[in-house]
């Protein structure tokens, strides 16, 4: 198993050198989505909560990095601030919102994102509805990342960090406590698991992952607008998490990569000559919707657990 992981890590690290611009952008978007989805998958699978507003944390991370660097803060600090602020926001919101269960939480997180988007669109310091322009490139100690491939490596590093942290969490004692939470909150509480605190911690951690991804996104793209973070993006993350398999780290990555590639393929299909202008979006919506329904009804644990179970039998 370890050998396979090392091979994958090395392979994906080497990959950007061989990709063209368009492929690099897919690589980066898939990697960033994976960072967000791993956190969401943990949240939904281990802590048993559903978030329909995960893109909020992605947005907060992106805007934090963007606004700070636009005002002269060194980019590396901006990038580091991104997950911190996202996690802080999640912690504050979570104190109230995590008292809710199931569908109430789903709506609360959805509402949270709508409020955030509304506020961003009206705030001049965030660029308002037009957005933030001219975000400087990422630079570390004098070396400026000005090639797309640089951002691909940065994304790789970000995902690696996320996976290492998440892996350690899952294996740790708090992590096992979390798994107990997912199966039975009452039993977990009875055996001394501090339910409220754990839930909050996972919520904040998933926000941090998304925030870090958002920060990288800001530097890669160079500009931001509220329109880049619609509610549909949060739904996309949920699709990725559900399809890949809730609660497993590999599931988060597999789901994100699979859906990103699928969306790309649909985009290519939808922009063929002769296809109407709305074809790409129609195809995407149809596929997201169908995937969500089909996976929940027929493959309730997602792809990765289904595959690994097959191997064992």
């Amino acid at each position, binding site marked *: 198993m370890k050998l396979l992981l090392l091979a994958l890590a090395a392979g994906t690290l080497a990959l950007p050198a061989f990709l063209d611009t368009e492929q690099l952008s897919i690589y980066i978007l898939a990697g960033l989505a994976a960072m967000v989805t791993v956190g969401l998958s943990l949240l939904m699978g281990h802590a048993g909560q559903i978030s329909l507003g995960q893109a909020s944390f992605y947005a907060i991370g992106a805007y934090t990095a963007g606004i700070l660097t636009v005002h002269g803060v060194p980019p590396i600090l901006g990038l580091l601030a991104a997950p911190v602020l996202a996690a802080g926001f999640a912690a504050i919101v979570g104190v109230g919102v995590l008292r809710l269960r*199931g569908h109430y939480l789903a*709506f609360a997180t959805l509402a949270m994102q709508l409020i955030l988007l509304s506020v961003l669109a009206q705030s001049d310091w965030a660029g308002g509805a037009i957005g933030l322009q001219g975000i400087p490139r990422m630079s570390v100690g004098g070396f400026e990342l000005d090639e797309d491939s640089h951002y691909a490596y940065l994304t790789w590093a970000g995902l690696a960090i996320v996976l290492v942290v998440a892996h350690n969490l899952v294996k740790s004692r708090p992590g096992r406590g979390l798994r107990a939470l997912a199966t039975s909150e009452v039993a977990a509480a009875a055996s001394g698991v501090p339910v409220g605190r754990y839930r909050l911690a996972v919520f904040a951690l998933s926000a941090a992952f998304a925030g870090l991804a958002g920060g990288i996104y800001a530097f890669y793209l160079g500009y931001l607008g509220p329109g880049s973070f619609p509610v549909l993006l949060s739904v996309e993350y949920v699709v990725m998490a559900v399809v890949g398999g809730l609660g497993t780290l590999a599931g988060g990555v597999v789901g994100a990569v699979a859906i990103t590639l699928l969306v790309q393929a649909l985009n290519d299909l939808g922009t063929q000559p002769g296809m109407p202008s709305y074809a790409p979006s*129609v195809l995407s919506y149809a596929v997201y919707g169908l995937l969500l329904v089909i996976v929940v009804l027929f493959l309730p644990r997602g792809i990765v657990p289904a595959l690994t179970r097959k191997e064992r039998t």
Partner: protein
Amino acid sequence: MLSDLAGYLVTGLGTGCGYALIGSGLVAVYRVTRVVNFAQGAFAVVGAMCASSFLSVLPHGIGELAAVAVAAVVGLLVGLLATTTTPQSALIVTLGLAVFAYAVEVLVWGDQPRSFAGLPGAVSIVDTRVQAHYLLIIGVTLPVFAAMAMFFTRTDTGKALTACASNPYAARVIGIDVRRMGLLAFTIGGALGGLAGVLVTPVQQVTFDSDVTLIVNGFAAAILGGLTRPAVTLVGGLLLGVTQALVAGYGNAAHQTEIALGLMIAVMIWRAIRRPETQEAPA
């Protein structure tokens, strides 16, 4: 100005009726099946879109009714899928269906806002002119709520639905087909959602993604009554609509969303603190 206030009240009550209808659709489904139907907003959008098409060939009244009927059928279809699994999974299924609905809506009607003519003309209320259509919305919604109340408390089928909501196990024991009742609830939810869309669109254009605002507001209205009480949902919806109208009129129209959603979250948290519930085996 009193006339301004009157104007805001009427428009607020009108939009509030729309929210209340969506909310009552959520309540109808939740009470009987314990499923939170994320496609509820989509029912409204589908109803509105259908009405916009039907009304180019059918007369007023018939066109809207046909649209509501289509929405009811869509509700039934959603119910068919949603009732095959647990309530927690069904939530995600309805979410998926709501997204799939986008594809259908854009395919058939495109991605631009649509509207159609409602009740023409304006009415004078305390020195201010208000679109007569708002009165129509209120005038249709209130009897519908009354009819629903009568349905659930006076008819045999309505009581059977209440029984399923009250005690699904006992309902099965005495031979009530709980699944069929669930489908009926979804169909009713579809009709209520469709009605909301049909009533509100003449004064508020609808796009394929309008379902998000609709369902969030509908949920905010329904949550006041714990997702189980239609009368409270009506009050909640009206309050929400009026609050938004007042904020838009006297303050900044852009803050409407935050107020509504903030209120909703506050209510949810307040209820959760007052009545903590533990939840076993989430999705």
